């Protein structure tokens, strides 16, 4: 079958790969309907997460129909239309039972790699390097889904494929940020990044009762999407002083909750960006934490900063003094989607969460390299390139 693969740094290919098979009893094989590119894929593409091998199949945000079920699967049957959470989690260990699904003890067959990086291993993720399990990704006609009773969710009738697709990763990641940051009614919430995850974090915060939500980015089309489809306010960081604007909006306090949905390749208009870029390229730091720094400085005293964008390792000039002296709560997580997806699908079926606008460019798998190029360079207003393997 054809699949979109990582071939090397900034090199995406389309090549023939074998079809997946059932390996464990709790597996299903899914016929992929739609599979989205994600901002975190760009970190793989750029070589910032050096655990990809040439030939690895990309893609971790997807939906489709069940094509085959393992003998231990009880909740799904052939033909079911499901959306699959991007993390592989067993559902039986203490972390899964606590709702901290991305921290699953059993979902990553290569635990030694992430133990070396972070001290402990976390769960696995489709198409997201050998550090997170080495699973094949979803940019292919078929994908193997382990722990399918835990990770695949039936899509309600009336929710389109294009909407349900983003219940796989962007929406539950946004929900994870807003919920784990404990957004409360009356809060002012600032979100850095108006990509799919940032938009969903903003929408989640609004549905959790935030008084005001403001999303920060530099791309007009994305900020326009936020205003039109999410209903939040926006700020363009290339046109204004973000901390000053946020102070003004909040009576001098700063936002109660600051959610960073940018990750390790953050941009900024100042000298700070140049400094971070040079250090990252020289491998003196693995990640550019520009947006996290700003979030920490902007956050009100005693507030919460949540790192939702993907970071891999070490950063420089981290304002720990502000974290300590302002009594901030600093949290982060990959998505615990298993606990949020049923709720998100309900919101989607009530038209309270709309995501179709994120899929700005839908194309066949053969156009994988072009899709990633457009997505990376934000060409033609690309917010997400989405692949339809059946096309």
């Amino acid at each position, binding site marked *: 079958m054809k699949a979109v693969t990582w071939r090397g740094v900034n090199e995406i290919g389309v090549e023939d790969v074998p079809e*997946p098979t059932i*390996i464990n009893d709790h597996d299903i094989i899914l016929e992929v309907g739609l599979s989205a590119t994600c901002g975190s894929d760009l970190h793989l593409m750029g070589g910032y997460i050096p655990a990809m091998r*040439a030939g690895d199949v990309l893609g971790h945000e997807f939906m489709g129909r069940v094509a085959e079920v393992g003998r231990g699967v009880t909740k799904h049957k052939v033909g079911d239309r499901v959306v699959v959470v991007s993390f592989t989690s067993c559902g039986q260990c203490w972390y899964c039972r606590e709702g901290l699904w991305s921290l699953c003890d*059993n979902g990553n067959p290569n635990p*030694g*790699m992430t133990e070396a990086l972070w001290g402990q291993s976390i769960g696995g993720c489709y198409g997201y390097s050998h550090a997170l399990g080495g*699973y094949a990704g979803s940019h292919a006609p078929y994908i193997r889904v382990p722990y399918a009773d835990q990770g695949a969710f039936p899509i309600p009738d009336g929710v389109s494929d294009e909407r349900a697709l983003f219940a796989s990763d962007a929406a539950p990641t946004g929900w994870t940020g807003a919920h784990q940051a404990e957004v409360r009614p009356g809060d002012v919430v600032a979100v850095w990044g108006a990509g799919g995850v940032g938009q969903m974090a903003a929408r989640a915060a609004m549905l959790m009762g935030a008084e005001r939500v403001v999303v920060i980015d530099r791309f007009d089309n994305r900020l326009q999407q936020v205003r039109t489809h999410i209903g939040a306010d926006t700020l363009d960081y290339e046109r204004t002083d973000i901390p000053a604007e946020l102070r003004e909006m909040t009576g001098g306090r700063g936002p109660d909750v600051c959610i960073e949905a940018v990750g390790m390749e953050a941009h900024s208009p100042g000298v700070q960006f140049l400094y971070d870029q040079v250090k990252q390229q020289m491998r003196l730091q693995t990640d550019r934490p520009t947006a996290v720094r700003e979030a920490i400085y902007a956050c009100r005293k005693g507030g919460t900063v949540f790192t939702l964008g993907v970071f891999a390792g070490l950063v420089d000039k981290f304002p720990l003094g502000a974290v300590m002296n302002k009594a901030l709560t600093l949290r982060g997580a990959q998505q615990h989607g298993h606990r949020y997806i049923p709720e998100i699908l309900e919101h989607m079926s009530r038209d309270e969460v709309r995501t179709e606008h994120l899929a700005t460019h839908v194309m066949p798998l053969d156009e994988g390299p072009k899709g990633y190029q457009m997505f990376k360079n934000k060409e033609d207003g690309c917010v997400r390139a989405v692949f339809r393997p059946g096309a």
Partner: protein
Amino acid sequence: MSSSIGTLAALAARGAGTVVRQVRSIVNPSAARPAGAGQTSSGWLAVTVFVEPSEIDTAKLPPPLAEFGDRIEVRVQIAPGGKGTELAARLRDRQRPGSAAARLAGKDAEADLRSALRRAKQLIEVGEVLAVDPVPHGDRTATPGGALLEGWTTAAPKGGVR
């Protein structure tokens, strides 16, 4: 007055702690021996399994651990805070612990036991050991980085911080 009682209570507690440590050191000499600085550690590798202690029968261990036979000793104790059961194992014939690099690369003497504990935990909790291969992939172009990563991936199931 209350201060004196407090002091006496603290001294008593400290004394009791010393007694407990001495008893433990007799029962288990390695428990009193600090790790590092050229000393061998106690050698226990542990995983926390989300089941009741009664659900782990040390006389009938899951196959990955049972295969070690009498080459290992096994300890089971309740995990605090409702986190399940701590399942620990160590080699009876213990060598000096490997370096951090050797442990992370899965090349230390305890590498097989580390992997066996992880697989045993999965068998108890999930009923099967998660596998990833055969994984669909395209052409594996031969590069030094690819070879390095392949080696690390092969070692990763056995590698770990401890």
